[in-house]
């Protein structure tokens, strides 16, 4: 073996990390090689010099400053800030760093986020094709700002005819808050309200020839549904239709 074969083990030789046979092999080589002996001796001196460096301590005031900072962190943590505040801080920090590094990238990021949020909002309504088709072919066109009342019998008949292709209104009624708690005693009569999406779904699934009655004014772009349950069955359903057809959310419901 040559000197370069022993050199990678000098450090472990000094640290006493070698196996017995490796240790003896290097010691034998060192006894006959002054060059390697010198290298090893210098390495030992360098290691001793580094190990002899004094241990450095932080400034005296650092211990108190650290204690206060950690106490603040622990107290803050125990009070459990809401998670959204951390997210808000992170986004604020990201925005600040983005402005410092490249305002163009920050503005581009915000635009991408805004476009993404906008697409999510405008695509979250009911499927346009089915609603339009159903309403255009089966329903006489009402005017906006009307309240319509449909009998439950007609709706159930339509649900039986159409199967499960569309969601019958009775399910909307049954899933209303008044019917969710089955352990509670059932009231003989209960009022319920359905969200706007339920109204749109009902308009797509109810049969033609509803009783269009009682035109009423309604709020701009607001659609809501109200009804009543008598003896566990929904008897009437009132739909307040939007008054502005160009409203994006309801523009899909074309009458």
């Amino acid at each position, binding site marked *: 073996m040559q000197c370069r074969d022993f050199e990678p083990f000098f450090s*472990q030789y000094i640290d006493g990390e070698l196996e017995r046979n490796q240790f003896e092999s290097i010691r034998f080589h060192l006894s006959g090689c002054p060059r390697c002996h010198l290298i090893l001796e210098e390495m030992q001196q360098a290691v001793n010099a*580094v190990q002899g*460096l004094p241990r*450095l301590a932080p*400034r005296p005031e650092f211990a108190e400053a650290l204690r206060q900072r950690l106490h603040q962190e622990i107290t803050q943590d125990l009070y459990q800030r809401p998670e959204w505040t951390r997210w808000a801080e992170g986004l604020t920090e990201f925005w600040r760093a983005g402005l410092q590094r490249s305002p163009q990238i920050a503005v581009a990021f915000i635009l991408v986020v805004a476009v993404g949020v906008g697409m999510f909002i405008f695509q979250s309504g009911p499927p346009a094709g089915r609603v339009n088709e159903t309403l255009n072919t089966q329903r006489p066109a009402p005017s906006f700002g009307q309240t319509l009342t449909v009998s439950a019998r007609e709706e159930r008949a339509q649900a039986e005819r159409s199967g499960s292709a569309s969601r019958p209104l009775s399910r909307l009624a049954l899933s209303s808050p008044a019917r969710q708690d089955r352990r509670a005693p059932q009231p003989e009569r209960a009022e319920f309200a359905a969200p706007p999406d339920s109204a749109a779904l009902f308009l797509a699934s109810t049969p033609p020839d509803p009783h269009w009655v009682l035109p009423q004014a309604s709020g701009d772009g607001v659609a809501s549904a109200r009804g009543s349950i008598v003896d566990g069955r929904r008897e009437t359903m009132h739909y307040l239709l939007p008054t502005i057809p160009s409203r994006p959310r309801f523009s899909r419901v074309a009458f």
Partner: protein
Amino acid sequence: MLRSVQTSDTTSALTAPDEWLFNQVQRGHTEAFDAIVNRYRDRLFNCIIRLVRQTECAEDLVQETFLRVYRSRNEYQATTHFSTWIYTIALNLARSELRKRKRRRFFSINTDPDDDQGERPELSDPAGGPDDQLHHSELGRSIQRAIGQLPIKYRTVIVLRDIEELSYEQISEVLQCPTGTIKSRVNRARLKLQEKLRYWQDDRGFPLSRA
């Protein structure tokens, strides 16, 4: 209100293993964290300042280390030594700081082309000057400068092995490298350090062992 360790536990907090203490922290006994801080504050500072060579920066990194340890206390699992875990966090922060400085130096117009590996202590802290503790003697300053001129990976293993006196296995856990890699890296680091110190020894004419 902060919850405190039981009275019987307080006396044992001085001699208890790190893992037991940190387990108390995980259970909500935040006073056990004070014992950990007292145990590791100076050790981490001595390790980090040998790498970053600025007192204020080292103190900031020590503080950040403890904050991260506390925030991620529930991620620690007792399958690894606590000392290994806390050194890993501290060294990651220190090496990140050194990389930031290297990038700053790269883009700075005041870069000294001769000093490509480490920064000179005289230039590293223009406001307060180099730390006096690092200049306890001419030899100590030379050794510290020689360590600072090593590449980061060699500087790290020298500090962990010869200053913090961690075993090769502990260093391999801290740096997440195989033990064989750490052994050869320590050997190369010592050879490079020895080469840098040889010039100093030749100039001064007295051996390093007098440090």
